[in-house]
Protein backbone atom coordinates (compact mmCIF):
# COMPACT_ATOMS: atom_id res chain seq x y z
CA UNK A 1 0.00 0.00 0.00
CA UNK A 2 2.83 2.38 0.80
CA UNK A 3 4.51 1.45 -2.47
CA UNK A 4 6.08 4.43 -4.19
CA UNK A 5 8.15 4.29 -7.36
CA UNK A 6 10.70 6.74 -8.77
CA UNK A 7 9.87 8.57 -11.97
CA UNK A 8 11.28 11.46 -14.01
CA UNK A 9 9.17 14.59 -14.46
CA UNK A 10 8.85 15.36 -18.17
CA UNK A 11 6.48 18.33 -18.14
CA UNK A 12 4.20 20.20 -15.78
CA UNK A 13 0.74 21.44 -16.77
CA UNK A 14 -1.18 24.47 -15.50
CA UNK A 15 -3.43 22.33 -13.32
CA UNK A 16 -0.40 21.22 -11.25
CA UNK A 17 -0.48 17.85 -12.97
CA UNK A 18 2.81 16.51 -14.32
CA UNK A 19 3.64 13.94 -16.94
CA UNK A 20 6.09 11.54 -15.30
CA UNK A 21 8.11 8.77 -16.94
CA UNK A 22 7.94 5.70 -14.71
CA UNK A 23 10.06 2.87 -16.13
CA UNK A 24 9.19 3.99 -19.66
CA UNK A 25 5.48 4.48 -19.00
CA UNK A 26 4.09 8.02 -19.02
CA UNK A 27 1.63 8.78 -16.25
CA UNK A 28 -0.21 11.87 -15.11
CA UNK A 29 0.88 12.67 -11.57
CA UNK A 30 -0.55 15.29 -9.21
CA UNK A 31 1.97 17.70 -7.64
CA UNK A 32 -0.34 19.04 -4.90
CA UNK A 33 1.69 17.41 -2.10
CA UNK A 34 5.12 18.73 -3.11
CA UNK A 35 6.69 22.12 -3.76
CA UNK A 36 9.21 23.44 -6.23
CA UNK A 37 9.27 20.48 -8.62
CA UNK A 38 10.73 21.17 -12.08
CA UNK A 39 11.04 19.10 -15.25
CA UNK A 40 14.00 16.65 -15.10
CA UNK A 41 13.50 16.15 -11.35
CA UNK A 42 13.00 12.62 -10.11
CA UNK A 43 10.05 12.17 -7.76
CA UNK A 44 8.60 9.29 -5.75
CA UNK A 45 5.13 8.53 -7.08
CA UNK A 46 2.46 7.07 -4.80
CA UNK A 47 -1.20 6.49 -5.84
CA UNK A 48 -0.98 9.14 -8.54
CA UNK A 49 0.71 11.80 -6.39
CA UNK A 50 4.34 12.88 -6.16
CA UNK A 51 5.33 12.37 -2.52
CA UNK A 52 8.84 13.77 -2.49
CA UNK A 53 11.67 14.85 -4.75
CA UNK A 54 14.51 12.31 -4.87
CA UNK A 55 17.72 13.98 -3.77
CA UNK A 56 20.40 13.01 -6.30
CA UNK A 57 23.31 14.04 -4.03
CA UNK A 58 22.07 11.95 -1.13
CA UNK A 59 21.48 9.00 -3.46
CA UNK A 60 25.09 9.29 -4.64
CA UNK A 61 26.34 9.45 -1.04
CA UNK A 62 24.52 6.19 -0.25
CA UNK A 63 26.10 4.52 -3.30
CA UNK A 64 29.55 5.85 -2.34
CA UNK A 65 29.13 4.45 1.15
CA UNK A 66 28.41 1.08 -0.42
CA UNK A 67 31.41 1.23 -2.75
CA UNK A 68 33.77 2.03 0.13
CA UNK A 69 32.99 -1.31 1.69
CA UNK A 70 35.53 -3.99 1.00
CA UNK A 71 34.33 -6.61 -1.43
CA UNK A 72 33.95 -10.13 -0.03
CA UNK A 73 37.48 -11.58 0.15
CA UNK A 74 36.92 -15.29 0.00
CA UNK A 75 34.34 -17.50 -1.61
CA UNK A 76 33.30 -18.58 1.89
CA UNK A 77 32.22 -15.02 2.62
CA UNK A 78 29.78 -15.00 -0.21
CA UNK A 79 26.15 -15.86 0.15
Amino acid at each position, binding site marked *: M*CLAVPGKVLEIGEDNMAVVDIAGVRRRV*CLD*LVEGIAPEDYV*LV*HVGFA*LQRIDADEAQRTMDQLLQMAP*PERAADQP
Partner: protein
Amino acid sequence: MKYVDEYRDPLGGQRLLAEIRRCPPAGGLRIMEICGGHTHAIYRSGLDQLLPEGIRFLHGPGCPVCVTPAVRIDQAIALAHRPGCLVATYGDMLRVPGSVESLRTAQARGAKVQIVYSSLDAVEIARSRPELEVVFLAVGFETTAPANAAAILHAQEGGLPNFSVLGSHVLVPPVLRHLLLSPGTEIDAFIGPGHVATVVGSEDYAFLPEEFGKPVVISGFEPHDLLLAVLMLLRQRAEGRCAVEVEYRRAVQPKGSERALAVMGEVFEVQDQEWRGIGVIPRSGLGIRRRFAAFDALARYRGELPEAAEDAGEYVCGAVLQGHRTPLECPAFGIGCIPEHPYGPGMVSQEGACAALYRYRQPGPGQGVAQ
Protein backbone atom coordinates in the same frame (compact mmCIF):
# COMPACT_ATOMS: atom_id res chain seq x y z
CA MET B 1 15.05 2.05 -13.73
CA LYS B 2 17.13 4.81 -12.11
CA TYR B 3 17.10 4.74 -8.29
CA VAL B 4 15.99 1.11 -8.38
CA ASP B 5 18.42 -1.02 -10.37
CA GLU B 6 21.58 0.21 -8.65
CA TYR B 7 20.13 -0.85 -5.28
CA ARG B 8 19.65 -4.41 -6.53
CA ASP B 9 23.14 -5.10 -7.94
CA PRO B 10 24.33 -8.51 -6.63
CA LEU B 11 27.92 -7.39 -6.02
CA GLY B 12 26.72 -4.56 -3.79
CA GLY B 13 24.58 -7.04 -1.89
CA GLN B 14 27.62 -9.29 -1.34
CA ARG B 15 29.66 -6.39 -0.01
CA LEU B 16 26.90 -5.52 2.40
CA LEU B 17 26.43 -9.10 3.56
CA ALA B 18 30.19 -9.47 4.09
CA GLU B 19 30.18 -6.28 6.16
CA ILE B 20 27.18 -7.51 8.16
CA ARG B 21 29.04 -10.75 8.93
CA ARG B 22 31.92 -8.70 10.32
CA CYS B 23 29.60 -7.21 12.99
CA PRO B 24 27.84 -10.18 14.61
CA PRO B 25 25.48 -8.95 17.33
CA ALA B 26 26.19 -10.41 20.75
CA GLY B 27 23.05 -12.19 21.92
CA GLY B 28 21.33 -11.80 18.56
CA LEU B 29 19.17 -9.00 17.19
CA ARG B 30 15.41 -9.12 16.68
CA ILE B 31 14.49 -6.43 14.17
CA MET B 32 10.91 -5.47 13.50
CA GLU B 33 10.32 -4.07 10.04
CA ILE B 34 7.21 -2.00 10.54
CA CYS B 35 6.10 -1.53 6.97
CA GLY B 36 4.40 -4.20 4.88
CA GLY B 37 6.35 -2.97 1.86
CA HIS B 38 9.54 -3.97 3.68
CA THR B 39 8.06 -7.36 4.61
CA HIS B 40 7.30 -7.96 0.95
CA ALA B 41 10.78 -6.83 -0.15
CA ILE B 42 12.49 -9.04 2.46
CA TYR B 43 10.71 -12.18 1.28
CA ARG B 44 11.00 -11.28 -2.40
CA SER B 45 14.78 -10.95 -2.11
CA GLY B 46 15.19 -13.74 0.45
CA LEU B 47 17.07 -11.37 2.75
CA ASP B 48 15.92 -13.20 5.88
CA GLN B 49 17.69 -16.33 4.60
CA LEU B 50 20.91 -14.49 3.76
CA LEU B 51 21.49 -12.89 7.14
CA PRO B 52 23.77 -14.57 9.67
CA GLU B 53 22.20 -16.59 12.45
CA GLY B 54 20.99 -14.50 15.33
CA ILE B 55 19.57 -11.67 13.21
CA ARG B 56 15.83 -12.12 12.82
CA PHE B 57 13.11 -10.08 11.18
CA LEU B 58 9.79 -9.71 12.97
CA HIS B 59 6.99 -8.48 10.76
CA GLY B 60 5.07 -5.47 12.00
CA PRO B 61 1.53 -4.15 11.65
CA GLY B 62 2.32 -1.81 8.75
CA CYS B 63 -0.20 -2.99 6.18
CA PRO B 64 -3.20 -0.65 6.13
CA VAL B 65 -5.24 -3.10 4.07
CA CYS B 66 -4.67 -5.78 6.71
CA VAL B 67 -5.65 -3.63 9.68
CA THR B 68 -8.80 -2.10 8.16
CA PRO B 69 -11.64 -3.27 10.43
CA ALA B 70 -14.18 -5.72 9.01
CA VAL B 71 -17.00 -3.27 9.77
CA ARG B 72 -15.57 -0.82 7.24
CA ILE B 73 -15.78 -3.53 4.55
CA ASP B 74 -19.37 -4.30 5.61
CA GLN B 75 -20.21 -0.60 5.33
CA ALA B 76 -18.64 -0.38 1.87
CA ILE B 77 -20.65 -3.40 0.74
CA ALA B 78 -23.87 -1.86 2.10
CA LEU B 79 -23.15 1.33 0.12
CA ALA B 80 -22.21 -0.60 -3.02
CA HIS B 81 -25.65 -2.22 -2.90
CA ARG B 82 -27.41 1.13 -2.31
CA PRO B 83 -29.32 2.31 -5.40
CA GLY B 84 -27.43 5.05 -7.24
CA CYS B 85 -24.21 4.47 -5.30
CA LEU B 86 -20.82 3.30 -6.57
CA VAL B 87 -17.89 2.35 -4.33
CA ALA B 88 -14.45 3.14 -5.74
CA THR B 89 -11.36 1.80 -3.98
CA TYR B 90 -7.75 0.66 -4.30
CA GLY B 91 -7.43 -2.81 -5.84
CA ASP B 92 -6.10 -4.48 -2.70
CA MET B 93 -9.34 -3.77 -0.86
CA LEU B 94 -11.55 -6.01 -2.99
CA ARG B 95 -10.47 -9.31 -1.44
CA VAL B 96 -10.47 -8.16 2.20
CA PRO B 97 -13.02 -10.31 4.03
CA GLY B 98 -15.79 -8.42 5.77
CA SER B 99 -17.80 -10.18 8.45
CA VAL B 100 -19.77 -12.10 5.80
CA GLU B 101 -18.17 -11.47 2.42
CA SER B 102 -15.69 -9.33 0.51
CA LEU B 103 -16.31 -6.49 -1.94
CA ARG B 104 -15.31 -8.87 -4.72
CA THR B 105 -18.00 -11.43 -3.91
CA ALA B 106 -20.50 -8.61 -3.37
CA GLN B 107 -19.56 -7.26 -6.80
CA ALA B 108 -20.29 -10.66 -8.33
CA ARG B 109 -23.78 -10.41 -6.82
CA GLY B 110 -24.40 -7.02 -8.43
CA ALA B 111 -22.88 -4.52 -5.99
CA LYS B 112 -21.32 -1.56 -7.81
CA VAL B 113 -17.58 -1.55 -7.12
CA GLN B 114 -14.80 -0.03 -9.19
CA ILE B 115 -11.04 -0.24 -8.72
CA VAL B 116 -9.11 3.01 -8.98
CA TYR B 117 -5.36 3.62 -9.06
CA SER B 118 -5.56 7.06 -7.49
CA SER B 119 -8.00 8.91 -5.24
CA LEU B 120 -8.26 11.50 -8.02
CA ASP B 121 -9.64 8.81 -10.34
CA ALA B 122 -12.55 8.43 -7.91
CA VAL B 123 -13.09 12.21 -7.98
CA GLU B 124 -13.06 12.06 -11.78
CA ILE B 125 -15.76 9.37 -11.79
CA ALA B 126 -17.94 11.64 -9.61
CA ARG B 127 -17.30 14.55 -12.00
CA SER B 128 -18.17 12.60 -15.14
CA ARG B 129 -21.09 10.65 -13.67
CA PRO B 130 -23.20 13.24 -11.78
CA GLU B 131 -26.10 10.80 -11.58
CA LEU B 132 -24.01 8.50 -9.32
CA GLU B 133 -23.07 8.95 -5.67
CA VAL B 134 -19.42 7.95 -5.61
CA VAL B 135 -18.04 6.68 -2.30
CA PHE B 136 -14.26 6.32 -2.17
CA LEU B 137 -13.23 3.60 0.30
CA ALA B 138 -9.93 5.11 1.41
CA VAL B 139 -7.36 3.39 3.59
CA GLY B 140 -3.78 4.18 4.38
CA PHE B 141 -1.04 5.21 6.74
CA GLU B 142 0.54 8.65 6.75
CA THR B 143 1.89 7.89 3.25
CA THR B 144 -1.53 7.66 1.61
CA ALA B 145 -3.61 9.92 3.88
CA PRO B 146 -2.40 13.15 2.18
CA ALA B 147 -3.45 11.80 -1.26
CA ASN B 148 -6.86 10.83 0.12
CA ALA B 149 -7.19 14.24 1.78
CA ALA B 150 -6.30 15.93 -1.50
CA ALA B 151 -9.20 14.10 -3.17
CA ILE B 152 -11.62 15.74 -0.73
CA LEU B 153 -10.09 19.15 -1.45
CA HIS B 154 -10.41 18.52 -5.20
CA ALA B 155 -14.07 17.50 -4.79
CA GLN B 156 -14.73 20.63 -2.74
CA GLU B 157 -13.05 22.87 -5.31
CA GLY B 158 -14.96 21.13 -8.08
CA GLY B 159 -18.25 21.59 -6.20
CA LEU B 160 -19.03 17.88 -6.40
CA PRO B 161 -22.01 17.04 -4.18
CA ASN B 162 -21.87 13.36 -5.22
CA PHE B 163 -18.44 12.46 -3.80
CA SER B 164 -17.64 11.18 -0.33
CA VAL B 165 -14.90 9.21 1.44
CA LEU B 166 -15.39 6.14 3.63
CA GLY B 167 -12.09 6.28 5.46
CA SER B 168 -9.90 4.02 7.55
CA HIS B 169 -6.69 5.92 8.16
CA VAL B 170 -4.12 4.73 10.65
CA LEU B 171 -0.98 6.18 12.21
CA VAL B 172 2.28 4.32 12.81
CA PRO B 173 3.63 5.78 16.10
CA PRO B 174 0.56 4.91 18.24
CA VAL B 175 0.57 1.25 17.18
CA LEU B 176 4.30 0.99 17.92
CA ARG B 177 3.71 2.39 21.42
CA HIS B 178 0.88 -0.10 21.83
CA LEU B 179 3.17 -2.96 20.77
CA LEU B 180 6.06 -1.90 22.98
CA LEU B 181 3.79 -1.58 26.01
CA SER B 182 2.17 -4.99 25.40
CA PRO B 183 3.41 -7.95 27.44
CA GLY B 184 5.35 -10.51 25.43
CA THR B 185 6.79 -8.07 22.93
CA GLU B 186 10.45 -8.87 22.25
CA ILE B 187 11.87 -6.37 19.79
CA ASP B 188 15.47 -5.11 19.94
CA ALA B 189 15.42 -2.65 17.06
CA PHE B 190 13.26 -1.26 14.28
CA ILE B 191 13.51 -0.70 10.56
CA GLY B 192 11.40 2.43 10.09
CA PRO B 193 8.88 2.92 7.28
CA GLY B 194 10.58 4.85 4.47
CA HIS B 195 7.55 6.21 2.67
CA VAL B 196 5.62 7.11 5.82
CA ALA B 197 8.75 9.02 6.83
CA THR B 198 8.93 10.93 3.53
CA VAL B 199 5.67 12.54 4.72
CA VAL B 200 6.09 12.82 8.50
CA GLY B 201 9.89 13.07 8.69
CA SER B 202 12.44 11.04 10.63
CA GLU B 203 11.88 13.13 13.77
CA ASP B 204 8.50 11.44 14.24
CA TYR B 205 10.44 8.33 15.32
CA ALA B 206 12.61 9.95 18.01
CA PHE B 207 10.31 8.48 20.68
CA LEU B 208 11.62 4.96 19.95
CA PRO B 209 15.15 5.58 21.26
CA GLU B 210 14.17 8.32 23.69
CA GLU B 211 11.22 6.65 25.44
CA PHE B 212 11.77 2.98 24.78
CA GLY B 213 15.54 2.63 24.26
CA LYS B 214 15.05 1.04 20.83
CA PRO B 215 17.21 2.08 17.87
CA VAL B 216 15.53 2.67 14.51
CA VAL B 217 16.89 3.04 10.99
CA ILE B 218 14.46 4.40 8.39
CA SER B 219 15.02 2.44 5.21
CA GLY B 220 14.26 2.42 1.51
CA PHE B 221 12.66 -0.56 -0.18
CA GLU B 222 15.34 -2.14 -2.34
CA PRO B 223 17.55 -5.02 -1.13
CA HIS B 224 20.60 -2.80 -0.61
CA ASP B 225 18.54 -0.32 1.35
CA LEU B 226 17.36 -3.00 3.74
CA LEU B 227 20.80 -4.62 4.12
CA LEU B 228 22.39 -1.22 4.76
CA ALA B 229 19.68 -0.51 7.36
CA VAL B 230 20.50 -3.81 9.11
CA LEU B 231 24.21 -2.91 9.02
CA MET B 232 23.48 0.54 10.49
CA LEU B 233 21.53 -1.11 13.34
CA LEU B 234 24.41 -3.53 13.98
CA ARG B 235 26.88 -0.65 14.09
CA GLN B 236 24.68 1.24 16.55
CA ARG B 237 24.68 -1.87 18.75
CA ALA B 238 28.46 -2.37 18.42
CA GLU B 239 29.17 1.27 19.23
CA GLY B 240 26.71 1.37 22.13
CA ARG B 241 24.50 3.95 20.43
CA CYS B 242 20.70 4.10 20.25
CA ALA B 243 19.30 6.67 17.84
CA VAL B 244 17.09 7.42 14.86
CA GLU B 245 19.14 7.11 11.69
CA VAL B 246 18.05 7.42 8.07
CA GLU B 247 19.29 5.04 5.41
CA TYR B 248 16.72 6.37 2.88
CA ARG B 249 18.30 9.80 2.75
CA ARG B 250 17.48 10.33 -0.89
CA ALA B 251 13.80 10.69 0.09
CA VAL B 252 13.50 11.34 3.83
CA GLN B 253 14.02 14.71 5.53
CA PRO B 254 14.02 15.22 9.31
CA LYS B 255 10.74 17.14 9.16
CA GLY B 256 9.18 15.32 6.20
CA SER B 257 7.02 17.09 3.64
CA GLU B 258 5.54 20.35 4.90
CA ARG B 259 3.04 20.49 2.05
CA ALA B 260 1.76 16.90 2.44
CA LEU B 261 1.41 17.38 6.21
CA ALA B 262 -0.54 20.61 5.64
CA VAL B 263 -3.00 18.93 3.26
CA MET B 264 -3.44 16.00 5.65
CA GLY B 265 -3.96 18.29 8.64
CA GLU B 266 -6.45 20.49 6.82
CA VAL B 267 -8.82 17.58 6.13
CA PHE B 268 -8.15 15.07 8.92
CA GLU B 269 -7.96 15.11 12.71
CA VAL B 270 -6.59 12.49 15.08
CA GLN B 271 -9.17 10.09 16.53
CA ASP B 272 -9.41 6.71 18.26
CA GLN B 273 -9.16 3.92 15.73
CA GLU B 274 -9.99 0.24 15.49
CA TRP B 275 -7.22 -1.98 14.11
CA ARG B 276 -8.27 -5.34 12.78
CA GLY B 277 -6.79 -8.15 14.84
CA ILE B 278 -5.54 -5.72 17.50
CA GLY B 279 -8.51 -3.65 18.77
CA VAL B 280 -9.14 0.02 19.41
CA ILE B 281 -6.00 2.07 20.02
CA PRO B 282 -6.56 5.59 21.37
CA ARG B 283 -5.63 8.44 19.05
CA SER B 284 -4.18 6.06 16.44
CA GLY B 285 -6.19 7.07 13.38
CA LEU B 286 -7.44 9.97 11.31
CA GLY B 287 -11.06 11.01 10.88
CA ILE B 288 -12.48 13.63 8.53
CA ARG B 289 -12.86 17.04 10.17
CA ARG B 290 -16.41 18.22 10.79
CA ARG B 291 -16.19 21.05 8.31
CA PHE B 292 -15.78 18.44 5.56
CA ALA B 293 -18.72 16.35 6.85
CA ALA B 294 -20.46 16.64 3.49
CA PHE B 295 -17.62 14.52 2.08
CA ASP B 296 -17.58 12.04 4.98
CA ALA B 297 -19.54 8.90 4.07
CA LEU B 298 -19.84 7.95 7.76
CA ALA B 299 -21.67 11.24 8.44
CA ARG B 300 -23.56 11.34 5.18
CA TYR B 301 -25.04 7.83 5.38
CA ARG B 302 -25.31 7.69 9.17
CA GLY B 303 -28.15 5.42 10.22
CA GLU B 304 -27.91 3.35 7.05
CA LEU B 305 -24.59 1.68 7.79
CA PRO B 306 -23.74 -1.36 9.93
CA GLU B 307 -21.99 -0.25 13.11
CA ALA B 308 -20.13 -3.30 14.35
CA ALA B 309 -18.73 -6.54 13.02
CA GLU B 310 -17.19 -9.54 14.66
CA ASP B 311 -13.83 -10.68 13.35
CA ALA B 312 -14.79 -14.33 13.54
CA GLY B 313 -12.48 -17.25 12.80
CA GLU B 314 -9.35 -15.25 12.18
CA TYR B 315 -7.02 -17.76 13.80
CA VAL B 316 -3.82 -16.03 14.91
CA CYS B 317 -4.03 -13.02 12.60
CA GLY B 318 -3.71 -10.44 15.38
CA ALA B 319 -0.66 -12.14 16.87
CA VAL B 320 0.96 -12.32 13.41
CA LEU B 321 0.19 -8.65 12.75
CA GLN B 322 1.98 -7.71 15.95
CA GLY B 323 5.01 -9.94 15.37
CA HIS B 324 4.18 -12.23 18.31
CA ARG B 325 3.69 -15.26 16.05
CA THR B 326 4.86 -16.16 12.55
CA PRO B 327 2.43 -17.16 9.78
CA LEU B 328 3.88 -20.69 10.01
CA GLU B 329 2.38 -21.01 13.48
CA CYS B 330 -1.14 -20.56 12.12
CA PRO B 331 -3.09 -23.78 11.49
CA ALA B 332 -4.84 -22.27 8.47
CA PHE B 333 -1.73 -20.87 6.72
CA GLY B 334 -1.47 -22.29 3.21
CA ILE B 335 -4.15 -24.91 3.91
CA GLY B 336 -7.48 -23.12 3.81
CA CYS B 337 -6.15 -19.57 3.94
CA ILE B 338 -4.45 -18.70 0.65
CA PRO B 339 -4.19 -15.43 -1.33
CA GLU B 340 -6.99 -16.44 -3.69
CA HIS B 341 -9.24 -17.17 -0.71
CA PRO B 342 -7.99 -15.37 2.37
CA TYR B 343 -9.53 -16.17 5.77
CA GLY B 344 -7.75 -13.32 7.47
CA PRO B 345 -6.31 -9.95 6.54
CA GLY B 346 -2.61 -10.93 6.48
CA MET B 347 -3.22 -13.12 3.44
CA VAL B 348 -5.02 -10.41 1.46
CA SER B 349 -2.53 -7.73 0.57
CA GLN B 350 0.80 -8.64 -0.98
CA GLU B 351 2.27 -6.67 1.92
CA GLY B 352 0.65 -8.89 4.52
CA ALA B 353 3.21 -11.15 6.22
CA CYS B 354 1.19 -14.28 5.35
CA ALA B 355 0.71 -13.46 1.67
CA ALA B 356 4.36 -12.44 1.20
CA LEU B 357 5.63 -15.62 2.86
CA TYR B 358 3.18 -17.77 0.90
CA ARG B 359 4.21 -16.25 -2.41
CA TYR B 360 7.97 -16.35 -2.08
CA ARG B 361 8.94 -19.11 0.28
CA GLN B 362 9.25 -22.83 0.07
CA PRO B 363 9.14 -24.27 3.56
CA GLY B 364 12.55 -24.66 5.19
CA PRO B 365 13.76 -27.63 7.23
CA GLY B 366 11.52 -28.26 10.20
CA GLN B 367 8.83 -25.86 9.01
CA GLY B 368 5.61 -27.76 8.71
CA VAL B 369 3.82 -25.90 5.97
CA ALA B 370 1.13 -27.78 4.15
CA GLN B 371 1.46 -27.44 0.40
